[in-house]
């Protein structure tokens, strides 16, 4: 729950985590969502004290993401909205990340760097939309870390495991560095990193090298985009924004070009309800209410298709 100023009232989470060495199975993740749904909603509405919170709008993440999981959220949102006779708003998951990050870091019109399991993108706001200035041509930074962790039997979440392993090493192993203009590509890096582990290199050395190479690639793409767009702010959002090494690198880039750096706080970097509430509330004030029959899910939904007229924030 978020109020109209973007202040977070409650932010209740329950994350599905697969066993070590195994990826997320869409059906199992959806089953988890069904199990915890009632409890999460109840906790969110009960607030911190004894005063019950009464919502004015219900918003849900319509995509992008795994269909079975999105449908659980959408069904739940429809049910609550119908039961309480409240307006329903759909939110793009990535836009939710950006809106909460903007609200919590006071960025107005930044070069936005969104790094998560679903996105690795460098975005600028033009007209009513976020435009992709650069992005990954294959897997995301989150995919890279998670898939590497899965293959090398590191515990989930992969990003945190890789970061703590990397902290134990200072030895750079040779790995492919792929920047194409403002785009990056991580799939070759993933394959090469897994191969290094399988051929007997210490996991910590590989984690260190993979992080350095992957983050340097992104930092370079961000730097190019920053010089080309001449933006005065750099926003860092998404789950991978919790990584302290990445934060240092992107802040160096911003500082070097006289831009201010706005990293999303760690507690709000990963996927959370507050993102959807924050974005839903903005969308609602711009006429984003939809009917139940329109409340579909969109597993593939590109960020630059979303109408985001509320940016730059005033």
């Amino acid at each position, binding site marked *: 729950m978020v109020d109209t100023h973007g202040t977070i009232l409650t932010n209740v989470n329950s994350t599905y985590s697969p066993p070590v060495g195994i990826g997320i199975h869409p059906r199992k993740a959806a089953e988890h969502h069904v199990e915890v749904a009632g409890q999460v909603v109840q906790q969110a509405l009960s607030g911190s004290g004894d005063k019950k919170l009464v919502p004015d709008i219900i918003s849900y993440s319509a995509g*992008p993401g795994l269909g079975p999981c999105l449908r659980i959220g959408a069904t739940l949102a429809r049910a609550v909205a119908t039961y309480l006779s409240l307006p329903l708003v759909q939110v793009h998951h990535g836009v939710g990340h950006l809106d909460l990050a903007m609200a919590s870091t006071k960025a107005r019109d930044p070069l936005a760097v969104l790094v998560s399991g679903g996105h690795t993108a460098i975005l600028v706001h033009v007209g009513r939309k976020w435009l992709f*200035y650069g992005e990954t041509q294959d897997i995301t930074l989150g995919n890279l870390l998670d898939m590497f962790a899965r293959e090398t039997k590191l515990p989930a979440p992969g990003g945190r495991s890789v970061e703590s392993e990397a902290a134990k090493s200072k030895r*750079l192993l040779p790995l492919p560095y792929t920047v*194409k203009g403002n785009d990056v590509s991580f799939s070759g890096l993933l394959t090469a990193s897994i191969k290094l582990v399988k051929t007997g290199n210490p996991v910590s050395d590989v984690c260190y090298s993979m992080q*350095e*190479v992957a983050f340097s690639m992104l930092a*370079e793409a961000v730097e190019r985009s920053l010089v080309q767009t001449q933006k005065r702010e750099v926003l860092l959002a998404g789950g991978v924004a919790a990584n302290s090494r990445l934060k*240092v690198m992107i802040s160096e880039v911003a500082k070097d070009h006289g831009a201010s750096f706005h990293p999303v706080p760690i507690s709000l970097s990963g996927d959370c309800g507050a993102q959807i509430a924050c974005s839903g509330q903005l969308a609602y004030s711009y006429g984003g209410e939809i009917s139940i029959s329109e409340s579909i899910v969109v597993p*593939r939904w590109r960020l630059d298709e979303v109408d985001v007229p509320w940016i730059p924030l005033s």
Partner: protein
Amino acid sequence: MDTTQLDMQPFHRGAEADLFLTKIGPWKAVVKRRVRKKYRIPQLDQRIRSGRTIREANALSDAKRAGVRAPSVLSVDIEDFAIAMSFVDGEIARSCLDQLPRREQSRVLYAIGQQVGALHEAGLVHGDMTTSNIIISRNGLPFMLDFGMSSHSSDPEDRGTDLHLLQRSISTSHALDSRRSEKLIREGYSREFGDRQASISFLRQREIARRGRYFAIR
């Protein structure tokens, strides 16, 4: 040549390099020096800077030999990650393309397409093909710059990447009609490279553009 001994005036600061104006013999020259990036660990930083300096110097002369308009390499200083090259008098396409009269604009876009086509025909790819890396000279001819990420390649993947990056830089940084721009660039490109080869590049370009996240399957 040791470029640190030259009398140089700061001229421009790019994302990865500083540019200085100087004179080498009778020529007005630009020294491009790749600067250290604090965000990268020194080992990786050195590898990237020296690799790109060598790449760029080689590619510039290869491109020129293939008849592509680009600055001439006058000297390379690997220790200092610097290249001295001839000065091209003009304006960066990124900042002047929108202001040109419509007919002139069309001619320039077509000519840019021709340059990319000529480069590809010579078995080279640019690797960072954006309007920020093209200078339109005083007499309206496009010159290509910044070959640090270029390579020898006849792979449709790399050719498609050049076209994709160019097209995206036009759609994100210019007020031009991106359909019309693409058509003109493609005409120039096909003219230089031949329809058959060009169509292979265009097909891959489209595929690369759709590799971004969450494109709907339509």
